[in-house]
């Protein structure tokens, strides 16, 4: 694990939490959407909170795909759940909302779960994790040579 990879995991956490909260804030302003009034969906997207939320969720998706390219699904998923913890902490210390004891217990459980996974290896699926990249590297080198590009 390099520093850069920790940054990607942090991106997965932060972008998901920030995107979700902006979307939910924007959708509360935009009002209800029903299947009978589909044009209200377009109006909702014009809401700046919703638009920024969608951009943040795209950033989440990019970092999620990035993380999945070098780590197990069961390694990345607990990281995404840290976003819930982040949201609860923001609710408590920035928005000064009441956080119930049950929610603090939830925070403790998620943090404990993440700690368990983070202590282990990031990639265990050797079947395609180790062999495929080596093959790809050889193929890329062959392509580079045949096209006269020296990498």
């Amino acid at each position, binding site marked *: 694990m390099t520093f850069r990879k920790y940054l990607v995991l942090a991106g997965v956490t932060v972008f998901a939490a920030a995107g979700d909260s902006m979307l939910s804030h924007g959708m509360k302003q935009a009002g209800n959407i029903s299947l009978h009034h589909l044009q209200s969906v377009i109006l909702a997207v014009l809401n700046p909170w919703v638009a920024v939320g969608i951009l943040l969720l795209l950033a989440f998706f990019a970092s999620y795909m990035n993380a999945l390219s070098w780590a197990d699904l069961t390694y990345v998923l607990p990281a995404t759940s840290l976003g819930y913890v982040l949201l609860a902490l923001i609710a408590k210390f920035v928005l000064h909302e009441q956080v119930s004891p049950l929610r603090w217990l*939830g925070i403790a459980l*998620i943090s404990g*779960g993440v700690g368990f996974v983070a202590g282990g290896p990031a990639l265990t699926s050797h079947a395609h994790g180790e062999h495929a990249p080596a093959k790809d590297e050889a193929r890329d080198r062959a392509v580079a040579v045949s096209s006269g590009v020296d990498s």
Partner: protein
Amino acid sequence: MKHLYTWGAILAIVLASVIGDILLAHAMKQVGDIHALWRRSGLWSVIGRILTNSNFFLGLMAMTVAFFSLLFALSWGDVSLVAPAAASLTFIGNAFAAKIFLHEKVDRRRWIAAVLVAGGVALLAG
């Protein structure tokens, strides 16, 4: 009856998101480590390889199904039931599916983590 619809929709969300997560994870393992690939052949090569991967698109489709199932579930049931139930069941489902289909070594450490996180999410979102 409404109860049954809600749980049916929750089941649909869980199934579709697990299928989507597995397909996306598999697609990205086929693409390979993005950092190494980027350094070797540039950003466009990375994007090209992702966009030409059929598992990636199947995964995206499954995620879209999950999203619309969520909308239906929310129109039948309370968000305080639907969101935590779907999220925590997806965690457990993903741990099983990753072990079976992706051959990840889900050892005791990861099982405990999956159960803890699923419980925590259920408490937080509830």
